[in-house]
């Protein structure tokens, strides 16, 4: 792994020993594999109106035209035209569309990884309905093959491949669960042979948010559900999904589903993590090779289920609050009302942000951006959009349902010395269970 700079002064990271030609060819092969009918229809339809720019938090926060979402796809689009589009033989024959150069790929690394959280707000803004967020995810597949991703993400990738989690080796998982349970006085279930619910975790919950492990347990116990954590399928944040490492994405997905099937679980519960939901709820079938035989739900949906069905009762908090909608859960996932149902049950008087639900501003750290320190300056700029909207609500509490959003927003709060604590919906529920 080496940090380098292009001739035009753009920093990039490169992994592996490869010639420029081999790197370029690997990227092209990765791109071409992604050009199906849906991607083609989207790449063919752009009218270059630029309306996606105003939807992107990085463009709006910095005013830099390079952050226009469709521009971030330029090498991907060029590869499509030259190698896969309907007129590609003509373009190649007459040299009308040149080959993508390795320099261009190096330069675009920061646009595809640092300056895109795959939040999909641009997708909603596009009058042609082009799913730019999905195309960026596909472009990352080729970039990963070329060894052109930020080193920080590559490090997480290697760790996840070796350990089964970017946070901790799988063999330590059960101990972390038991230790957390003992420390917080919460009965834990781990590695049970059979259970109705397989409960999974996000990396931050194994490091700085360990209380969330006990919080989930408290809720499941209070609701009287038959549940377990499990060493063979615990890590839900799919690093492969973020990095463009399809092999790892498949491996991580299969682990969860296989474990759920093995223990006879009917429901796989994903943690408070947005991209975990994108990977497991909407893409698992691709890797499982057909319909997934378990129900896959987010922790927020589980909370709404146990609250709405009366399986748990909550003490009223009776304060004002606002809610940050995690992009992958709400805009890209359709879980619009579940968090609001839970907040209502907690008697939190909700004041919506100016841009809310599907139109919410991203926290700025999704898609691996929060782990990629190179992106810190623009991430902090994007954070200011959210900060302004939260301040405008004048509410007492600021709640979200994604650990990565929480980390990103809390980093922003620390950076700007903002006295707002970003709270987890799960934690609020666990802390306010009625006896």
């Amino acid at each position, binding site marked *: 792994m080496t940090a380098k700079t292009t001739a035009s002064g753009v920093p990039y990271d490169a992994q592996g020993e490869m010639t420029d030609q081999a790197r370029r060819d690997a990227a092209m092969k990765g791109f071409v594999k992604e050009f199906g009918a849906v991607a083609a*229809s989207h790449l063919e*339809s752009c009218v*270059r109106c630029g309306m996606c720019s105003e939807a992107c938090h990085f463009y709006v926060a910095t005013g830099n*035209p390079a952050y226009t979402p469709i521009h971030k796809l330029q090498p991907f689009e060029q590869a499509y035209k030259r190698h896969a589009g309907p007129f590609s033989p003509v373009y190649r024959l007459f040299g009308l569309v040149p080959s993508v150069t390795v320099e261009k790929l190096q330069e675009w690394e920061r646009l595809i990884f640092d300056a895109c959280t795959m939040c999909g707000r641009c997708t909603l803004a596009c009058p042609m309905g082009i799913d730019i967020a999905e195309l960026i995810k596909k472009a990352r597949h080729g970039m990963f093959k070329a060894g052109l991703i930020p080193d920080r993400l590559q490090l997480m990738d290697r760790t996840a491949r070796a350990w089964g989690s970017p946070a901790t080796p799988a063999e330590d998982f059960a101990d972390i669960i038991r230790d957390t349970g003992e420390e917080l006085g919460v009965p834990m279930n781990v590695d049970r042979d059979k259970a109705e619910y397989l409960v999974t975790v996000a990396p931050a919950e194994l490091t700085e948010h360990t209380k969330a492990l006990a919080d989930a347990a408290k809720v499941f116990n209070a609701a009287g559900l038959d549940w377990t954590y499990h060493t063979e399928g615990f890590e839900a944040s799919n690093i492969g999904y973020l990095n463009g490492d399809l092999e790892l994405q498949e491996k991580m997905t299969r682990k969860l589903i296989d474990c759920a099937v093995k223990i006879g679980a009917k429901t796989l519960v994903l943690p408070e993590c947005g991209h975990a939901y994108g990977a497991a709820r909407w893409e698992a079938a691709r890797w499982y090779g057909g319909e997934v035989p378990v129900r896959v739900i987010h922790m927020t949906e589980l909370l709404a289920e146990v609250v709405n069905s009366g399986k748990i009762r909550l003490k009223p908090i009776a304060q004002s609050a606002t809610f940050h909608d995690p992009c992958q859960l709400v805009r890209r996932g359709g879980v619009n009302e579940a968090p609001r149902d839970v907040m209502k049950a907690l008697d939190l008087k909700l004041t919506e942000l100016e841009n809310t639900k599907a*139109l919410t501003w991203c926290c700025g750290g999704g898609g691996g951006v929060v782990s990629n320190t190179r992106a810190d300056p623009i991430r902090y700029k994007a954070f200011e959009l959210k900060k302004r909207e939260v301040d405008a609500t004048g509410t007492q509490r600021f709640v979200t349902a994604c650990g990565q959003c929480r980390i990103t927003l809390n980093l922003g709060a620390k950076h700007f010395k903002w006295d707002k604590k970003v709270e987890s919906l799960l934690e609020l529920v666990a802390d306010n269970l009625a006896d």
Partner: protein
Amino acid sequence: MTLLDFARGPALQAALVIFIIGALWRFIGALLLPWRLVPAQPREGSPGTVSAWLKGMAVKMWPHEPFAKHGAFQFINGYIFHVGLAIVVFLFVPHILFIQGLTGLSWPGLPNSFVTVIGVVTAASLVAALLHRLRSPVLQLISRVDDYISWLLTFLPVLTGLLATAHLGARYETMLALHILSICVFLIWFPFGKLMHAFLFAFSRGMTGVRLGQRGAEL
């Protein structure tokens, strides 16, 4: 053979052949690529494939409020020249007669003077769109030669049509021939550039409609 005979005859025929073959080629080339659909369990209560597709097409007719606010000029101006072009092309009586001559199909038109006014508004709107493209840093960055060619080839038929109607610029027959020739060039370019969005939008919007619609997400 006069220039007008050439324009109405072989030029238009050749242009239509290229238009049809080119458009079919582009459609087939894109849609014959693998579909690779991910059969995720749709959210309960979400629309079926056909209604999600149609909803995707319909919803994108109008931007969400925050985007409408920032893109008001483009959005409104875009509607003006699209509707203007549709009126001028399909509701101008001489055009209807021309199409009737080619296909036998006919429908009622609007008064010529009204359509002429619409033509002037459309031309002005197209000029405004070009100026916006030239002045916006975002559009400067993302624009390609195709954008300018497509603009020019859309503008020229409007301009020559207005000149022919007003008997300006050249002898009427010559200007009419130039008008038809400009349409021929427009048709020839159509399948190769962004003008194809006139057909492709249905697929692009529809596919996103299905992807997000089945998740129960907003479009």
